[in-house]
């Protein structure tokens, strides 16, 4: 066991990127206001001074253009990390991500690959209103050729970002803004990585599996604590990696608890949680004592007023109430 350090999720990301920049000359970071301005969410703080403009590239506010440039650069061997100021802005680059990055390896018959990371905050921050609050991980997970991860802890943020940078495929790495200040113990080990496609059980339980990813995993942990007071023993399963997906760990949990609930911040309708519920219902039908239920974001554009915004996002009370409602 290597030693650990306590880091915020933000600092874990920053440490991972700095170490990858040091490790591989072909790694660089591109994005809006990431250099001289130090990053809107300060994830790249101090990096411009340390690594300079060649490797910390401030871009114009043209997401499609610079994402495409990163894809082209990746095709000739660079390993760009593109920071989206918010994942909502990646919508401007959807053609580049979906119609180009995700297709390169396939359409070239394996001749070329795109070692590219697109990372940034996805989901609600605080009163950023409807245009800055999207959870797009489900959209991206829908696209073959992309890997999509959504770590919930500082250690996973650190280990999964390193894995993402070393991966030879385009990786969408979503960071919920509510997680940036969450602290956790992170292995103090340059070679520590967390593989994709592995879910993890953060708390064992026997009565019900609460399945989530990103910040909802933190909500699920708190909900599990609250439910424990009622004598309900909840297992918290952190999906971590949406694509590839570790169905085995999720199924094993359900075969143990016989009840499952999927919690996701994205719009409930047609979101990634629906995919999880559908496939787990198919594979675990005989083991389930009740249908797998879902708790998701309200199907509305996210409003500005704080009280309304909070209405939209699943919280501990919503999860606890939904579990109780399962009977």
């Amino acid at each position, binding site marked *: 066991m290597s030693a650990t350090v306590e880091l915020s999720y933000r600092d874990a990301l920053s440490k991972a990127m700095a170490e990858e920049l040091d490790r591989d000359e072909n790694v660089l970071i591109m994005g809006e206001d990431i250099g001289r301005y130090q990053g809107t969410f300060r994830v790249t703080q101090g990096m411009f001074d340390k690594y300079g403009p060649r490797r910390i590239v401030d871009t114009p506010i043209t997401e499609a253009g610079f994402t*495409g440039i990163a894809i082209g650069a990746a095709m000739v061997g660079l390993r760009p990390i593109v920071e989206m100021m918010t994942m909502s802005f990646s919508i401007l680059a959807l053609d*580049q991500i979906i*119609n180009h990055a995700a297709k390169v390896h396939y359409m070239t018959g394996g001749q070329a690959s795109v070692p590219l990371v697109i990372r940034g905050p996805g989901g609600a921050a605080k009163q950023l209103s409807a245009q800055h609050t999207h959870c797009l991980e489900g959209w991206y997970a829908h696209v073959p050729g992309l890997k999509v991860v959504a770590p919930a802890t500082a250690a996973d943020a650190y280990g999964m970002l390193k894995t993402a940078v070393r991966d030879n495929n385009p990786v969408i790495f979503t960071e919920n803004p509510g997680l940036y200040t969450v602290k956790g113990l992170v292995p103090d080990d340059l070679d520590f990585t967390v593989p994709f496609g592995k879910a993890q059980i953060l708390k064992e339980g026997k009565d019900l599996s609460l399945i989530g990813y990103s910040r909802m995993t933190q909500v699920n942990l708190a909900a599990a604590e609250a439910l424990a007071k009622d004598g309900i023993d909840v297992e918290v399963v952190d999906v971590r990696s949406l694509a590839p997906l570790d169905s085995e760990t999720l199924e094993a949990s359900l075969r143990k608890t016989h009840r499952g609930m999927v919690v996701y911040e994205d719009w409930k309708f047609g979101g990634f949680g629906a995919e999880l519920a559908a496939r787990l219902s198919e594979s675990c039908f005989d083991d389930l004592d009740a249908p797998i239920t879902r708790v998701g974001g309200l199907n509305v554009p996210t409003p500005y007023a704080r009280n309304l915004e909070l209405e939209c996002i699943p919280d501990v009370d919503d999860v606890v109430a939904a579990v109780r409602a399962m009977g």
Partner: protein
Amino acid sequence: MAKEAKLEHMETPAQLEEFYRQMLFIRRFEEKCNVAYRLGKIGGYMHTYVGMEATAVGFNAALRRGWDYVITAYRDHPQPLLMGSDPVAVMAEIMGRSGGLSRGKGGSMHVYDIERGFFGGWGIVGGHIPLGGGLAFGAKYKGEDRVTVCYLGDGAANQGVVFETLNMAALWDLPIIFAIENNEFAMGTRLEYHAADTQLYKRGEPFGIKSERIDGMDVLEVLKDASRIVDYVRKEQKPYVVEIMNYRFNGHGAADNDRQLYRTKEEEEIHAKRDPIIRLETLMLERNIMTREKMEAIDEELTDQVEAIYEKADASPFPEAHEVYDNVYTDLEPEKGH
């Protein structure tokens, strides 16, 4: 001085014959593709380069083979043929066969030969232009003196990402040539109906990018201009916009059966006189470099060659069903079954 000597050399009889062969080969190859399309041997969307040959041939001759990068849209058959790709593998790709460059995964619009510096082969109008910027960015980042030629059509010149990429190319001094092939039609929409300013080379000017318009129907003119531009970009490490005036003799794509919807027969006849192959034939006859008989013999030779390429490609089997799962990712297979 060295440059002039090079140009003189380019115009040796041997070089002219080489250009003639390249242009005629592309013409016969594309015509064969059209026939194969009608026979149902090629599917989907297919766009031939008939009429525009001087552009690709002239530009290709100005590039360093195996070093410089080329990227284009979906009218992409001539590039790999000129860059040294196996023509059977190009034809097999167009026919969706396992012997294709991408083992049949790309098709006519998505031909790639990465090893030779040909980066496709893209189907979204304008979508590949930032990628071209990225190729140049990568070369510059690594300190290599590669030049990237990013071809785009007059229709693509209106896309937003073009302006985004022009801006970044100028901002970061990327060694890239935006080669706008202005064949005067964005599919079926004439230039003056789709561009507010029909002088497309001017699109580089707001960004301080050197820009000019050249004749794309004369292979020697293209070579002369391309050599100068490529030298500039390589030496100065700056972008360049060149608008190459050419004309496609076929429809936009193989499925475009009614050209009369957007241009007249009379207009086509006028442009037919600009045919780059006839132009070179005339020049070679005038200079007594090649006889009509020799030209006919070359044509026969190339036609046979293309026929043999087609036969070989047609003998290549379709990909195995299990290959559908290959190359989605570099390191893992997608879930199988429906």
